[in-house]
C-alpha cells in the first residue's frame, strides 16, 4: 500500500525526457548512479552523535538542540550564502525537522512524505510517499492531522523510522527508501494519528500518539515502546487512565475513563542513559473546561504534567503537574530538556522546560521530580502563584462557572509558548526559548461530539496582544541554574520557528516576517539576518561535510504567523504557503578549510 519514487523510476523519467525532440541533441544518457552505501546508526551513536551530524530530532536525545560546530560563528556568519534550496512535497504547517547522517539528509514533510537528499548538493536520492486512508470529509480535525506533522522521523541502524498520520510505525531502508516493516499501532478510525516523531534508544522506538482530543479516542492516550528491529510492542502507558496510581484515578473526580480525553504527549520526549529514564510532556484535558468536563477542581492527571518513565518497562518514576485543572486549552507538552549544571559529582541533573502555552519556565531535579524554580516569561493571568514545593494555584476568577461565560485569558490557545522548540547551549548554560505575547477570550459551549472531531466544547476569540504591550515576538535567554532572565529580544512579528544553538556563539531562528536571524548567545543582539520566501518554520539545524558547515532552514505556512497577523499588520503575511528548505554555507573564499 505504498508508493516509492526510486532512483530507477527517476532514471526512467530522465530517459523519457531525453526522447523528446528538445533533448534529442543531448549527449549520451547519464550513467546510472552507483548504489549508495549507508553507515548504520548505532545505539552508542544516538547517545553520542558525531559533531558534524544531526541524527536525532534535537540532535541529542537530551533534546538540547545544540551543535558543537563553530565554523559559522559571530565573525563569519555575515559570509553565509545559499548552497541549495528545495521545495517541500506537501503544504500545511511547516514543522519539518531535517536529519543528516553519512552525507544524506532525511526530510520528512506533511502527509508523511519522506525524502532522502544529498546533503551537500541537494540532489534527490529517494522519496517515500505513505498512502493515507481516505477519511470522511466531515472529520475536519482529524483530516488536519496530516497537515501538521512535526519532527516525524528517527534514524536507527540502517533504517528510517516513521510515525504516520494513520497511526502506523514504518521502517524504511535508509539507503533506498524501501519499506522494511510496518505495524498498525492504534485504530486511526477512532481518531488516533501520530503527529510527532519517535525517540529511538537502546533498540527501542519510544513514541507518543496524538489525536486524543478526538471524540472516538475517549479513555486512552499513550506513550509506548516498540522493538526497533521488528515493530513489536514492548510497553504502553496511558496518560489519562493509570489504575496503578489511586491519586491519578481520584484526580478526575468521578469522571470515568470513557468520558476522558486529551493528555496528548505531542512533543518528542527526552532520554537520560544515567538512569534509563524517558521524559515526556503531556497536553491538556478534554473537554477544555472543567464545567463541561465534569471533573470539578480535580487536577485531571496526567494532563499538563511531566512524566518520567522507566525506558525498559514504561513504569512511572514520577510526575509533576505544571498546570492542574486547565480550563483554557493551555496545554503543556513542549520540550523537556536535560541539562547537567556544574561538574563531576557535584553536578545537578536538571530538567528545564517552558512546558506549556502559558509560558512559565520550570526547573526540576530530573532524578526525583523535585521542584527547583519557576518564572513567568510572557504576560499570563491564569497562574496566581507557585509555592516552594511547586504547587500551582490558579486564578479562580478565570474558571468559568456557567456555559457561555466568557473570560479573558492570557496567554492564548496559540501560545505563549508553542511547539516551536527552544535550544540549550552548554557553553553558556542558557536555555533560549521562542515565545509570544498573546491573549484571547475563552467561552465554554455545549456541543454534541461528532466522529473525527475534537471535544474542546469551547469558543476562542481572536488572538490579541495583552494590554499595554506592543511587541508580540519574544526570545528569552534563561539561566538554567535559577531560571533568571539573561536577556530578552522583543519585536512586533512573532517568532515562527524553533531555535538552534551552536558552539559558534549563535542562536538561529526566524519570524513571521520571513527573517532568518543569527542572535548573539550572550547579548541577544541580532548579528545577521536575511529575508526568505515565507515565515521561518520547522527546526533549523546544522551539519558539516568536507570541512564546510551548512545551515538548513525550513520556511512555509505558519498557523502562528496567520493567527497573530493582526498584531503586526504593517508586515503582511504572504498568501502563498511556499513550504521550502534553504541551505546556507560560508562563501568559499572566506573559509580557510577550502580554497
Amino acid at each position: 500500500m505504498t508508493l516509492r519514487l526510486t532512483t530507477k523510476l527517476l532514471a526512467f523519467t530522465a530517459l523519457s525526457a531525453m526522447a523528446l525532440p528538445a533533448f534529442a541533441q543531448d549527449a549520451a544518457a547519464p550513467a546510472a548512479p552507483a548504489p549508495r552505501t549507508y553507515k548504520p546508526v548505532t545505539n552508542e551513536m544516538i547517545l553520542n552523535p558525531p559533531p558534524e551530524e544531526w541524527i536525532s530530532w534535537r540532535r541529542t536525545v537530551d533534546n538540547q538542540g545544540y551543535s558543537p560546530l563553530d565554523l559559522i560563528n559571530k565573525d563569519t556568519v555575515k559570509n553565509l550564502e545559499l548552497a541549495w534550496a528545495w521545495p517541500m512535497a506537501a503544504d500545511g504547517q511547516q514543522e519539518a525537522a531535517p536529519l543528516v547522517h553519512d552525507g544524506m539528509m532525511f526530510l520528512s514533510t506533511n502527509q508523511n512524505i519522506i525524502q532522502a537528499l544529498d546533503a551537500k548538493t541537494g540532489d534527490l536520492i529517494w522519496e517515500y510517499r505513505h498512502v493515507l486512508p481516505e477519511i470522511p470529509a466531515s472529520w475536519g480535525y482529524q483530516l488536519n492531522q496530516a497537515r501538521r506533522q512535526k519532527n516525524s522521523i528517527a534514524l536507527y541502524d540502517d533504517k528510517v523510522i516513521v510515525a504516520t498520520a494513520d497511526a502506523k510505525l514504518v521502517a524504511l531502508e535508509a539507503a533506498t527508501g524501501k519499506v522494511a516493516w510496518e505495524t498498525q499501532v492504534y485504530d486511526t478510525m477512532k481518531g488516533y494519528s501520530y503527529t510527532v516523531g519517535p525517540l529511538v534508544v537502546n533498540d527501542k522506538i519510544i513514541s507518543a500518539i496524538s489525536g486524543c482530543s478526538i471524540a472516538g479516542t475517549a479513555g486512552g492516550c499513550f506513550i509506548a515502546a516498540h522493538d526497533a528491529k521488528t515493530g513489536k510492542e514492548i510497553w504502553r502507558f496511558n496518560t489519562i487512565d493509570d489504575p496503578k496510581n489511586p491519586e491519578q484515578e481520584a484526580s478526575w473526580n468521578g469522571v470515568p475513563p470513557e468520558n476522558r480525553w486529551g493528555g496528548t504527549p505531542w512533543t518528542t520526549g527526552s532520554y537520560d542513559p544515567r538512569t534509563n529514564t524517558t521524559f515526556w510532556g503531556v497536553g491538556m484535558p478534554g473537554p477544555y473546561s472543567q464545567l463541561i468536563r465534569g471533573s470539578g477542581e480535580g487536577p485531571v492527571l496526567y494532563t499538563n504534567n511531566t512524566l518520567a518513565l522507566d525506558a525498559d518497562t514504561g513504569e512511572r518514576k514520577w510526575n509533576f503537574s505544571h498546570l492542574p485543572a486547565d480550563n483554557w486549552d493551555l496545554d503543556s507538552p513542549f520540550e523537556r530538556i536535560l541539562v547537567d549544571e556544574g561538574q563531576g559529582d557535584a553536578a545537578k541533573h536538571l530538567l528545564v522546560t517552558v512546558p506549556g502555552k502559558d509560558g512559565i519556565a520550570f526547573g526540576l531535579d530530573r532524578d526525583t521530580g523535585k521542584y527547583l524554580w519557576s518564572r513567568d516569561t510572557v504576560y499570563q493571568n491564569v497562574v496566581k502563584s507557585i509555592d516552594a514545593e511547586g504547587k500551582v494555584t490558579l486564578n479562580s476568577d478565570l474558571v468559568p462557572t456557567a456555559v457561555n461565560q466568557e473570560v479573558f485569558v492570557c496567554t492564548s490557545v496559540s501560545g505563549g509558548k508553542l511547539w516551536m522548540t527552544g535550544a540549550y547551549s552548554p557553553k553558556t548554560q542558557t536555555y533560549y526559548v521562542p515565545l509570544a505575547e498573546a491573549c484571547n477570550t475563552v467561552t465554554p459551549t455545549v456541543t454534541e461530539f461528532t466522529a473525527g472531531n475534537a471535544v474542546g466544547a469551547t469558543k476562542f476569540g481572536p488572538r490579541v496582544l495583552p494590554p499595554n504591550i506592543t511587541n508580540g515576538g519574544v526570545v528569552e535567554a534563561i539561566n538554567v541554574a535559577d531560571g533568571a532572565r539573561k536577556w530578552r529580544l522583543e519585536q512586533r512579528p512573532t517568532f515562527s520557528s524553533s531555535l538552534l544553538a551552536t558552539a559558534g556563539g549563535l542562536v538561529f531562528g526566524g519570524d513571521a516576517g520571513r527573517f532568518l536571524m543569527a542572535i548573539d548567545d550572550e547579548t541577544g543582539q541580532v548579528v545577521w539576518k536575511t529575508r526568505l520566501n515565507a515565515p521561518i518554520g520547522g527546526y533549523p539545524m546544522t551539519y558539516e561535510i568536507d570541512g564546510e558547515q551548512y545551515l538548513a532552514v525550513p520556511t512555509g505556512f505558519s498557523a502562528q504567523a496567520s493567527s497573530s497577523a493582526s498584531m503586526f499588520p504593517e508586515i503582511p503575511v504572504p498568501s502563498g504557503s511556499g513550504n521550502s528548505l534553504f541551505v546556507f554555507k560560508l562563501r568559499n573564499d572566506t573559509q580557510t578549510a577550502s580554497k
Partner: protein
Amino acid sequence: MPFPNKLIAGLAALGAGLALHGSAVAADGHFTAEQAARGQTQYNSNCGSCHGMQLEGGVGPTLKGTDFLGNWGTAGGIYDYFSVAMPPTAPGKLGEAVYTDILAYILSANGLAAGSEELPADPAVMNAINLTEAAAANAGNAAPTATTAEAAPAAPVPQAFTFGKALPTKQPDGTVKDVTSGSAAANP
C-alpha cells in the same frame, strides 16, 4: 445517556417551527441569496486559497460542518473572530460590509436557508443566530445521506460526562439558569 442525533434534530425542527416563541431562534432566513452570492465572490478571492473553494479546508481549517458550527456557537462568534484576525495578509482590513457578506456565504454553505432580509453588521442580530442548533439539524440530516463514506462507524460517538445533564448556563439577559446540556436552549 447522550441525546441521539435524531432527537436533537427533532428538537431543532420543533424550534424552527416555533421560531417566534421563547429563546429558540431559528437559524434560517437571516441573509439573502444575493448577499451570499456577493460573499462567495469575496470568499473565493480572500479566503479560498487557504480554507478551500468548497470551504473544505487546506492550510487553514475547514469552515463547514457540525464541528465548525458548534465551535463558534453563533454567527456573532464567527464574525468577532474573523473580522479581526482574517485574512492573514490583511487582518481586519476587508471592511464591515465584506466581512458580513462573507459570513452570509459561510452560513449559506453550511446549509442555512436564505431569507428576504440581508444580514446586518449588528452584533445583537448575529449573536442571536444559533449555529449549534443548525449543526444539530445538519447532523440529523446528514445521517441518511452519508452513504458515500465507506462504512459509517457503527459505534455511537462518546459524549462529555455532563452531556444530557443540567449545567448552569448564562442567558442573553445575563442571568444564569440551569439548562440541560445538549438541548437547543443550551447555547442561546
